């Protein structure tokens, strides 16, 4: 009886996953239902160049993100030095910066006619130009590294305390403990973060287009808007998804034969000594200055400039709308992600529908919008519902859940992995049904992960652009649509106000997260 009920619940959740993934099915089945008149041209003149540039950009962005994130997470989590507390959370800040805004800001500073480029040219005779492929990789890494920094820091801090202390007792020095003990244990957390960085890099459109780089995502839009060929655009999305499939496989490899750390025991923080006591914080401050200080400074200079006018009449409602969609989408996504996490824990750990839905994070928002509208158009045109789905907030919320499921699910999966299976077995032996066991035993332990998931989803929704732009109701501006509208007509200084507010809005959940982490 209980078993049958559980199985039904499991199937119910599977159905939800399928319902969520349906727009992606539209994309995946494109060759069956959408003709691609110019596919031969795309194959000959676009695909291989785009694939090459995509891989190059991915490689550079990932390498630099890891370089920025992992050592700083290690220092902040396990060593003590002046300014550690402030740097600890300040380094999360770039997370709140949309990539396309960052791209514009860095170009204004370090592009061919950038203020800093010109200054450096005049004073040092070296005139940098950040607007090329490696430069874009650097820009993306500077705003995306917190996706690795956050989980890595959590792993270093909470996931391996006993091992690190044991290694210290056995006489291992800092670097050796990092290389031989910490890195192997933190590998899955770092890989999960790196996967998010990769996905963000792959689906970026605004930054890549502005820098004149040709990635698969720009190809999708080229085909769609230039060749009037949606079929080819969807086929390119398939190639993108295949690439993500490879990345997912790689990420799983990193989890193979990984040793389980001692969860929830913090390592002792040893003070840094010698020159590193000052060198370490100096390097971190340098990283922060590059990643957050420069763009923030530029935005502040813009908004305080007297010639920049700001329309609060438009910005205030946009702030309200932003909060509204962020909260609704974060809660909805989290509930769905929790159900999926439950299914993976107590039912099918490899439910293909859940895996599929999680791919929504990789696909450019505009392509997801096509899938979502194709489906929602059916009841809309038939008039089956009392209100139209397209242009309604429920549909937008649903689209966000598909787009950001991976962001919500990732921390939950990571958190559950730290809970040993003996825990579930004990609860079940004491007579609790699976769902009750999940609610009463697993869920309370999952609180930090839940909070992290909600924060990340909320920040992503605040930054999100294409889905909001096309699926929104009438007269519904958000901060990101305002920033985009101004930026695309090349009024970059005016765009600084909404952009700054996006960062501020993202700061709120970041601070909340930090407080919770600090209380632990």
């Amino acid at each position: 009886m209980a078993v049958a009920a559980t199985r039904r619940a499991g199937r119910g959740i599977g159905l939800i996953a399928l319902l969520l993934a349906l727009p992606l099915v539209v994309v995946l089945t494109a060759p069956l239902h959408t003709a691609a008149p110019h596919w031969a041209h795309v194959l000959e003149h676009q695909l291989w160049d785009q694939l090459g540039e995509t891989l190059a950009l991915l490689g550079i962005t990932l390498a630099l993100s890891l370089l920025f994130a992992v050592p700083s997470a290690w220092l902040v989590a396990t060593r003590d030095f002046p300014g550690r507390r402030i740097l600890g959370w300040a380094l999360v800040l770039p997370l709140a910066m949309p990539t396309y805004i960052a791209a514009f800001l860095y170009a204004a500073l370090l592009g061919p006619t950038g203020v800093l480029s010109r200054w450096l040219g005049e004073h040092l005779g070296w005139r940098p130009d950040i607007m090329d492929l490696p430069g874009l990789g650097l820009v993306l890494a500077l705003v995306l590294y917190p996706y690795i920094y956050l989980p890595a820091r959590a792993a270093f801090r909470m996931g391996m305390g006993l091992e690190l202390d044991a290694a210290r007792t056995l006489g291992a020095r800092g670097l050796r403990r990092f290389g031989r003990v910490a890195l192997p244990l933190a590998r899955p957390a770092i890989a999960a973060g790196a996967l998010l960085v990769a996905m963000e890099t792959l689906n970026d459109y605004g930054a890549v287009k502005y820098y004149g780089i040709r990635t698969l995502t720009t190809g999708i839009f080229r085909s769609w808007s230039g060749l009037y060929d949606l079929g080819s655009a969807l086929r390119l999305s398939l190639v993108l998804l295949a690439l993500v499939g490879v990345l997912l496989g790689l990420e799983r490899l990193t989890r193979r034969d990984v040793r389980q750390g001692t969860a929830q025991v913090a390592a002792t923080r040893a003070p840094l000594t010698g020159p590193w006591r000052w060198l370490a914080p100096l390097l971190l401050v340098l990283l922060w200055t590059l990643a957050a200080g420069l763009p923030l400074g530029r935005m502040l200079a813009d908004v305080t400039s007297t010639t920049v006018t700001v329309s609060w009449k438009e910005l205030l409602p946009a702030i309200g709308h932003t909060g509204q969609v962020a909260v609704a989408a974060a809660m909805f996504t989290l509930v769905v992600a929790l159900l999926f996490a439950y299914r993976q824990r107590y039912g099918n750990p490899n439910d293909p529908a859940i895996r599929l839905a999680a791919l929504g994070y990789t696909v450019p928002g505009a392509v997801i919008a096509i899938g979502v509208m194709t489906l929602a158009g059916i009841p809309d045109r038939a008039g089956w519902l009392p209100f139209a789905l397209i242009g309604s907030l429920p549909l937008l919320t649903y689209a966000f859940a598909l787009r950001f499921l991976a962001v919500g699910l990732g921390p939950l999966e990571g958190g559950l992995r730290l809970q040993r299976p003996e825990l579930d077995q004990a609860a079940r032996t004491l007579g609790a049904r699976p769902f009750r066991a999940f609610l009463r035993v697993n869920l309370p332990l999952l609180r930090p992960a839940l909070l992290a998931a909600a924060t990340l989803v909320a920040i992503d929704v605040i930054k999100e652009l294409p889905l909001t732009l096309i699926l929104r109701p009438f007269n519904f501006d958000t901060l990101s649509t305002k920033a985009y509208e101004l930026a695309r007509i090349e009024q970059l200084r005016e765009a600084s106000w909404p952009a700054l507010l996006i960062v501020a809005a993202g700061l709120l959940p970041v601070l909340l997260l930090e407080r919770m982490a600090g209380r632990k």
Partner: protein
Amino acid sequence: MKQLLPLLTATLLLGACGGNERPATTPEPEPAAVNVYSHRHYDTDKALFERFTQETGIPVNLVMADDDEVLARLEQEGASSPCDLLITSDAGRLGLAAERGLLQPSGDAGLDALVPAHLRDGQGRWYALTMRARVVAYHKDKVDPATIATYDDLTRPDWKGRLLVRSSANIYNQSLVSALVAHEGREKALAWCQGIVANMAREPKGGDTDQMLALAEGQGDVAIVNSYYAGKLLTSDEPEKQAAAQVIGIVFPSLGTHGTHVNVSGAGLAAHAPHKPEALKLLHFLLGTEAQAAFAEGNKEYPVRAGVPVAPVLQGFGELVPDSLPLEELARNNATAVMVMEEAGWR
């Protein structure tokens, strides 16, 4: 399952609550309101819509998004679409929308009389509101503008390494090549693109404004840009742009003997417009002299109505003689244009 139900209910409620708590944002089919899908993101437009509401009492509801997504949304909404008026900033997309049955003939001869024939659809499905010309910005100290009479002149070998232009993903570059294909055929257009690529000062990057800033700093001597970005740069209050404006001159190249290439932003009546009379009223308003003057002065665009003054900064460029190619041709040749640009290696 029993325990699942409350969770599910809560979830659904959460998803739905956002939609219900703001009835103002889901427009009812009230008698007086115009629903607009627009790709134009300008303050001038919003001010004009407010002015229209003041004058007529008809509120304007607005969704602003990119052209292609807007067309996709219209297509999927079909007959249930609340959209009355579609506004885009590319004639190609207007033509595409008409071809896909997303627009309907206005049936309003009064509108036809306001807009020159080549700037509107033959069946009255869309009308240009404003023109933007693809002009050439040049460095006053280094270039004699008389050497740039046609777009072809830009492919001469003496411009090698001196030409600035943005990527082929840009719609205005696409529509320029599209016009070239329409006038002179695919082969000629390909040769032209190859000539442009051979003369580029650097890989295409940035927007039109960036090309002009680079020009002012000596990273190139000529740049292909949009007239309204040029107008905005030259009237900017930012010191950096003011400095650039000092050395930049503008010239109107001709497409062969046909005149300067123009693209437009324009509006069309949605195929299933629930508020047709109000939408036509708004269209008349946007083509009225007051709105046309606002587009011209506020946004540095060329009005489509005769007799409306062009912004002083644009007058300073000289007189625009627009190519009279029917703009419907742009939609027809856009895909070919993109293919030609890619074959030529225009990034």
